[in-house]
């Protein structure tokens, strides 16, 4: 089985279309790492001077002064219970940092920004690669020769599944991991906080992204082994993700937003994913359900069940079908 898996890994790595997709993933990871660094670069002296000038102009405005005086006179009635004069100054005095053209690098906010974005892009590309891997075998007819050389179809399917899963995981680890190493190095170089809690959060995010990439690659492969055509797989995935969202919104059922593929993908990738369920009951204006939360556990269960159904159907179909 190990030998057969090596053969399938070699087959995966030999496909030109797959290599192009992997190269694209690597290039996009590099571009996004550069973008994260560039968009958070330290402000120049000119930008700082301009920001200070803007802050001073604002502080000198009569209406702002009036508001500040009122707040200082009675902080509680102005800002609420427990408010202090210091909080009045903080809230109503314009700080020069508010006028800087960009925020400094923040690893936690990068997870929700470019981190999630890159993970989704890489996973999407690995879905196409996994689908291409299986689709090329069918379209070229080489699957027949493979079955003649390894007639134990379960072994052949298994070796291919392991190969595509491992390759997807490795590709995701290299690209997403590479992105975060680059961003982390920038943070260290700029002396931006990168304590162990932040590193821990980034590490878990990378791990979840890699696991999802492995599952996505495997799922795309399995689905293509059923349909025997990568375009059919991608169409079904598109219909399931986009069409499913539309269907969930159209069906006369309440609180079904957590069944959408997109919500569960975000629920797995993001920590404490919060979303507004569009199907939550709204009997009258202002009576809608509040934001919904989707944790890693339920999202993982949803995705795992979907993957299990697809892989089992694929394996069973391949074992018996005429080639």
């Amino acid at each position, binding site marked *: 089985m190990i*030998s*057969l898996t*090596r*053969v399938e890994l*070699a*087959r995966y790595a*030999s*496909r*030109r*279309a797959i290599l192009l997709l992997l190269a694209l993933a690597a290039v996009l990871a590099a571009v996004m790492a550069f973008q994260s660094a560039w968009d958070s670069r330290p402000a120049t002296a000119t930008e700082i001077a301009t920001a200070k000038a803007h802050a001073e102009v604002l502080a000198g405005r009569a209406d702002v002064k009036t508001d500040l005086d009122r707040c200082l006179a009675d902080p509680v009635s102005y800002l609420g219970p427990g408010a202090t004069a210091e909080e009045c100054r903080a809230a109503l005095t314009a700080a020069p940092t508010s006028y800087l053209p960009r925020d400094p690098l923040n690893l936690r906010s990068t997870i929700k920004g470019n981190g999630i974005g890159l993970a989704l892009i890489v996973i999407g590309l690995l879905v196409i690669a996994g689908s291409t891997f299986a689709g*090329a*075998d069918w379209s*070229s*007819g*080489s699957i*027949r*020769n*493979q*079955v*003649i*050389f*390894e*007639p*134990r179809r379960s072994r*052949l399917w298994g070796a291919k599944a392991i190969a595509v899963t491992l390759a997807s995981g490795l590709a995701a680890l290299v690209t997403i991991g590479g992105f975060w190493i680059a961003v982390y190095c920038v943070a260290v170089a700029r002396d931006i906080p990168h304590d162990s809690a932040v590193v821990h959060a980034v590490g878990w995010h990378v791990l979840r992204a890699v696991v999802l990439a492995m599952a996505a690659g495997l799922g795309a492969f399995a689905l293509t082994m059923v349909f025997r055509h990568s375009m059919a797989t991608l169409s079904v995935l598109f219909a399931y993700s986009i069409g499913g969202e539309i269907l969930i919104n159209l069906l006369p059922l309440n609180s079904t937003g957590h069944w959408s593929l997109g919500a569960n993908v975000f629920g797995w990738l993001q920590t404490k994913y919060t979303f507004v369920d569009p199907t939550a009951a709204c009997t009258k204006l202002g009576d809608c359900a509040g934001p919904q939360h989707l944790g890693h556990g339920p999202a993982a269960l949803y995705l795992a069940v979907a993957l299990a159904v697809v892989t089992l159907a694929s394996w069973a179909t391949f074992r*018996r079908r*005429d*080639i």
Partner: protein
Amino acid sequence: MSASTVEGVERPARSDLVVETRNLRKVYRDRGRKLVAVDGLDLSVERGGVHGFLGPNGSGKTSTIRMLLGLTRPDAGEITVLGESYPAHLPAVLAKVGAVLERGQFAPDLSGRKNLDLLARSAGLPSGRVGEVLEQVRLTAVAKRRYRGYSLGMRRRLGLAAALLKSPELLILDEPSNGLDPAGIRDMRDTIPRLTESGVTVLLSSHILAEVQQVCTSVSIIDGGVLLKAGRVRDLLGESTARTRVGVSDPARAAGILLDAGYAVTIDGAYLLVEGHEHPDVITRQLAARDLFVHELSAVRPTLESFFLKLTGHRPAGPADPAERAADEVAEHLPALTGELPVIAADPEGTDG
């Protein structure tokens, strides 16, 4: 080759058979429609030599071959290959079976060598074997070229190389000459008998009947998924009742002489068609003894095509795709080389027949 269900042909002992099917049946279902591709086929292929597998378009040849290779599951019947039954011993049997299928079966992005290397590794074969088979089919020089850049002839030869990788006891060739140029056809025709010298049994499916007639020692003819006739080519074509076309200055007198000698004679214009003789030299002797001298003497043997058409009632039809039309054109231009090269319509999709 023989089959017990076919009149006048004895079924050999089972130990002599490399392929045996009993009551084999395959039905395809398409949108509620049933298509019976193979309908109770009893096929037997003896060990050694080249066995032709003939049938018109859609007769069930390719379906049968796919079942023999484990690519398709039969709906009923038994398959025994190299003495082992399917599907229980399929992996062990296929380790000793090579096959060239009609359609492309390699990854186009990979080189010929890489394609073979992956197949060899998947079957646990030594990597050195790849170089040997590439040499055997004379593809070493282009082995590093991508498969998509191969000519049709190169693709066929690479298919043959893949089939030879396992040093097979049984080699199944499905339309190996389809789409090849004249040189490619001749190359394949020379290669196939050579393979049998090392003890390989070849099962050859082809729609080029002259090719089959030249290289095959025995044939099975199927139509509608059932076996119509099976036997040695020589027996089927009736070598013993060969006719001779005789050109002579006085055909009427010559006919009388030969009729008196006990031969069946038909006058065909300025020629005679003579039957019932052992060898043509007896004709020349008989006529020369009466001062009639032969100016033309040629054997008129029944062809596999005429036999096939008589049996199946199918006339040759033009293949649908350009590659097969080219094969037809090649066939038409080859009689000078091969005697005759009749063609049956091929299945352009390679789905059956």
